[in-house]
């Protein structure tokens, strides 16, 4: 059973090769021999139509996502904690959040361009929108899930307000907040591809895919998509690892 997880990907790869052979059109289904070399030379600028190496593009995308994600976390977590602790603030912000949340990050693109013009700020803004809501909602949830008994124990043992926040609320809410960060990052990573299709962008994995399309290089599109998927997977793996290491107590509390 341990190797079952590799079965489907392998089948899909084989299926793809067969399809490329049958369809015989590199624009629609490029063969693996045209895709693999790109992946095998991630540091070389020769395989990416002059946009810089695959790694360069990847790093730029990661930087952009990282920035947007960080801003989202820095804004959403404090608000979430306040909302979780205060019924007043919760009710105050709740309706606005529920109204804004369903608007897809991409729908903010025209507004972002109108506000911030072409450039890094617009991209970071779109990514911020993407990551903000999951982080916020999970933080509120996490803080609300802190058991009343835990708070009362702290009070009776002499903890002051600030200590209750740092020694009970935050550690108690941490696993849920972490889930919010993980989900938020996943969405932010998905947003970066679309965000890099904004005018005025000249590098990044999302940009690379679009650029490749304009030159009919579907093999480069596929290679880019594979890299996007793998990076997303690796980062999620890091999140999961931290969760296992620090938050395995969650759900077991009695």
């Amino acid at each position: 059973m341990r190797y079952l997880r590799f079965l489907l990907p392998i089948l899909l790869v084989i299926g793809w090769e067969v399809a490329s052979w049958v369809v015989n059109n590199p624009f629609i289904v490029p063969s693996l021999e045209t895709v693999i070399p790109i992946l095998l030379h991630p540091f070389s600028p020769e395989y990416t139509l002059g946009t810089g190496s695959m790694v360069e593009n990847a790093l730029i995308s990661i930087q952009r996502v990282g920035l947007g994600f960080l801003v989202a976390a820095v804004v959403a977590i404090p608000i979430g904690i306040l909302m979780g602790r205060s019924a007043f603030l919760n009710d105050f912000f709740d309706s606005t959040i529920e109204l804004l949340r369903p608007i897809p990050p991409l729908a903010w693109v025209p507004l972002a361009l109108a506000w911030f013009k072409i450039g890094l700020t617009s991209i970071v803004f779109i990514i911020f929108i993407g990551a903000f809501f999951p982080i916020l909602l999970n933080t509120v949830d996490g803080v609300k899930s802190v058991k009343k008994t835990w708070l009362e124990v702290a009070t009776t043992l002499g903890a002051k307000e600030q200590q209750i926040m740092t020694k009970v609320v935050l550690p108690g809410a941490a696993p849920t907040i972490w889930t919010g960060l993980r989900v938020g990052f996943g969405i932010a990573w998905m947003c970066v591809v679309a965000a890099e299709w904004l005018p005025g962008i000249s590098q990044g994995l999302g940009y690379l895919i679009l650029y490749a399309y304009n030159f009919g290089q579907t093999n480069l599109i596929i290679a880019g998509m594979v890299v996007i998927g793998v990076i997303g997977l690796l980062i999620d793996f890091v999140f999961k690892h931290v969760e296992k290491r620090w938050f395995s107590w969650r759900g077991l509390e009695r």
Partner: protein
Amino acid sequence: MPVTLVLKDLSKSFAGEGKAEVEALSHINLEVSDGEFVSILGPSGCGKTTLLRIIAGLDHATGGTILLDGNKIEGPCPRMAMIFQEYSLYPWRTVIDNIAFGLEMKGMEKQKRREMAFQFLELVGLVDFAGSYPYELSGGMRQRVAVARALAIEPQILLMDEPFGALDAQTRNMLQKELLEIWQKTRKTVIFVTHSVDEAVYLSDRVVVLTARPGTIKDMVHIDLPRPRERTGAEFARIRRYVLDHVEKTPFSSKV
């Protein structure tokens, strides 16, 4: 013995449905002596937990006062520590760090507070579990940690809210015995809330019987039996029957 805790005319009302006020506690007068083991016994909903919470400073009385050694208290007090029924340990902390929590709040530095916490860990017989997490412990062990944590801040009074209520009968009996041993060793004052007549008679110097809503003291039964008490003894049965009669005779005055 000098009197430690005095409850004077304590009352508590909640805003009920519509305009009707619910009187949870009505004119409670009680004096607890230093080192005494007092049980507050009553059926569910009689306000005994509310009373304990008011003493602990987690709720406020709507009438009356509480005096500790002559001084009025209105909130949580470092000379009292409370032990809850369940879900009270911090799952993200090890056993030793749970016990040391109160000391950490006081500002004691790590090495010192862990050493001190370890003493109480020994007292409850869990030295091998210092580095364990709560989810690794059984219910009975967790409650022992909760007791150690409360004792670590060296309070004068222990407030216990049906601490063994969530445990199976055998574990419960065992912990009752251990609690008495700890009590006799440390000479704390204990106010113990329970709905079990058996438990109250086994443990206490005095059983305070509370009526149902509104909560008032129906009777106080002094128990002079030496400890450890035989649950199956004749004297025990007699006292038990006496207390049970008093509990059962309390009118059930809920207006549902």
